[in-house]
């Protein structure tokens, strides 16, 4: 009989609202490890916990703020970034992180990410990309790979998905990275780096969605989808981001890495600079 490991507490317990568990996510969902990476980055940040604020929009990912024991805001669909913009400018001491889904940030909220990045608002944006709208039951979205089946692309998606890192780079994000829910160490480090940086940072995280996306595309269980990402992913920090698009048909590798880390003056420092 295997020895039973009994622990009273997990190091991340203080970061969780235990009275809200169990969470609503499906077995095999990637959101748990992503939330844990963010929580660990908070602990490691050296920034007082009360100064950390999380903002999300709507969807499965939008539920992360509800499980974290920090000031947390669950806003309207697509509007996490402008809400966070008001929070950050209203109180520049806040360390504001947005965790939301691909549909929330790039479809209904697409306009806001363009302008927050362009303005270099000091926000950390973590986009969980599960290739579909999970909360509403597996519809296609702006990142659904060409050819993939969802409930609204029953013949296969014939649109071209957004290449998020390339877009974020083009808009001047000071940090751009892509990892998967499997790459917890690299993801946590990227989030920590984002918290250190002044300005608009962007991290895409690929996450399995066995119910919404895995099932209609015969990807198996959540673990199988993780394996797929493990096999298909290569790490190339220096990739030409034009080549960072994701196409599941071609057996083309999915490129992960810390692609961009540059300096640009953040929004809040600019008004004084221009008035003096």
């Amino acid at each position, binding site marked *: 009989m295997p020895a039973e490991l009994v622990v009273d507490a997990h190091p991340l317990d203080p970061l969780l*609202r235990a*009275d*809200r568990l169990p969470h609503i996510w499906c077995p095999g969902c990637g959101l748990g490890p992503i939330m844990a990476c963010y929580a660990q980055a908070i602990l490691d940040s050296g920034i007082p916990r*009360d*100064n950390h*604020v999380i*903002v999300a929009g709507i969807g499965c990912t939008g539920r992360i*703020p*509800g499980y974290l*024991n*920090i*000031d*947390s*805001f*669950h*806003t*309207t669909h*697509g*509007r996490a*970034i*402008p*809400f*966070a*913009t*008001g*929070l*950050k*400018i*209203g*109180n520049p*001491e*806040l360390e504001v992180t947005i965790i939301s889904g691909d549909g929330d940030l790039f479809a209904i909220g697409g*306009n*806001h990410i*363009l*302008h927050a990045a362009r303005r270099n608002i000091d926000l950390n944006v973590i986009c969980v990309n599960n290739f579909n709208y999970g909360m509403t039951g597996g519809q296609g979205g702006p990142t659904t790979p060409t050819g993939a089946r969802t409930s609204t692309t029953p013949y296969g998606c014939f649109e071209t998905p957004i290449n998020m890192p390339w877009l974020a780079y083009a808009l001047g994000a000071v940090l751009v990275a892509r990892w998967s829910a499997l790459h917890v160490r690299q993801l946590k480090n990227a989030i920590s780096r984002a918290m250190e940086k002044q300005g608009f940072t962007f991290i895409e995280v690929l996450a399995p969605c066995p119910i919404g996306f895995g099932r209609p595309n015969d990807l198996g269980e959540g673990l199988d989808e993780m394996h797929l990402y493990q096999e298909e992913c290569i790490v190339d920090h220096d990739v030409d981001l034009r080549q960072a698009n994701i196409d599941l048909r071609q057996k083309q590798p999915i490129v992960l890495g810390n692609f961009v880390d540059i300096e640009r003056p953040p929004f809040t420092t600019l*008004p004084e600079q221009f*008035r003096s």
Partner: protein
Amino acid sequence: MTSPTAQRVLTGTHFMVGDHAVAEGAMAAGVMFFAGYPITPSTETAERLARRMPEVGAHFIQMEDELASMCAILGASWAGVRSMTATSGPGFSLMMENIGLGMITETPCVVVNVQRGGPSTGLPTLTAQADIMQAKWGSHGDYEPIAYAPSSPQECFDFTIKAFNSADRYRVPTFVLGDEIVGHMSERVVIPDASQIPYVGRKRPVPGEQRLLYEADESLIPAMPFASDGYRVHVTGLTHDERGYPATLPEPHDRLVRRICDKIRIHADEIIEVEEWQLQDADIAVVSFGSTARTARHAVAAARQDGIKAGLLRLITLWPFAEKHIRALDKRAKAFVVAEVNLGQVVTQVERFTAKPVLRANHAGGRMMSPEPIMDAIREASHAS
């Protein structure tokens, strides 16, 4: 050396356009964050604040659209500062989504709508008063807003300050429903000394008191913590319980929505403001507001000269509606005339609270109402009653 304008309250007598008076009212009220998007006929408010706010260390940001503007002022409010936006009909339509978020999360902020002709792009440069029902019902679900209707640049200044105070006092997004005529009219604006600017702040949590985030006392208004206060609040647009946690079930939903409506309803008497003119002995009660109240006053005076006992009830607050004032007039007056630049919005409210004849003096927008149609309606009401 500090520039002479580098101060919050421009005490003195000015000749000022209404949209600028809104901006100066906001400055005097202590606005720290403005987010907006250019739109006729409200743009002058944003332009003035873009220049004025940095002078006092406050933040102006031009957002990418009105969805973002409305959302950003909610975020800033939770950061602990007074925040506002200014817009007109098409922008007000886009703001409805996050006005709803402000209502359910009880987030104080001020939204100024300088009304123009609609629907849609309508009359970008010309007046209307046709967003009255949109202000009440435009976002989905039940809620009770507060809305002020200025009739002059002076009131643009005064009512913007009132709006900030009501927003904070009742924890509710609060509207200033101006119109293009008032927004673009230049008149004398007297700005008092800074010590004379009324200020009502937000109710804040008392340290050590074990109240839940949305647990209210008999006022039904919960205290409001700010981000980084250490309360570790969860704020959600989902129906939530007193802890702020999602509670998407019929009972907590009824409890929450009933409370956010009742917190305004039980305070209606202290929120509602009207001006009564020549109503004491009036047979015909004219009801009007905003720029139209100015011509309604002329019509009432002219009717008096013709021997018709008319009077004016000017609505300063459009929401909550001055139901008691209409009921009181119902006992005295023989008929009502409602003068408004829309095809019948406030009139439907008046009709709810009187059994007397209610006549309409209105047009769809594009110009200030002249006294003649109101006088015609007064005469008709006088003959009929």
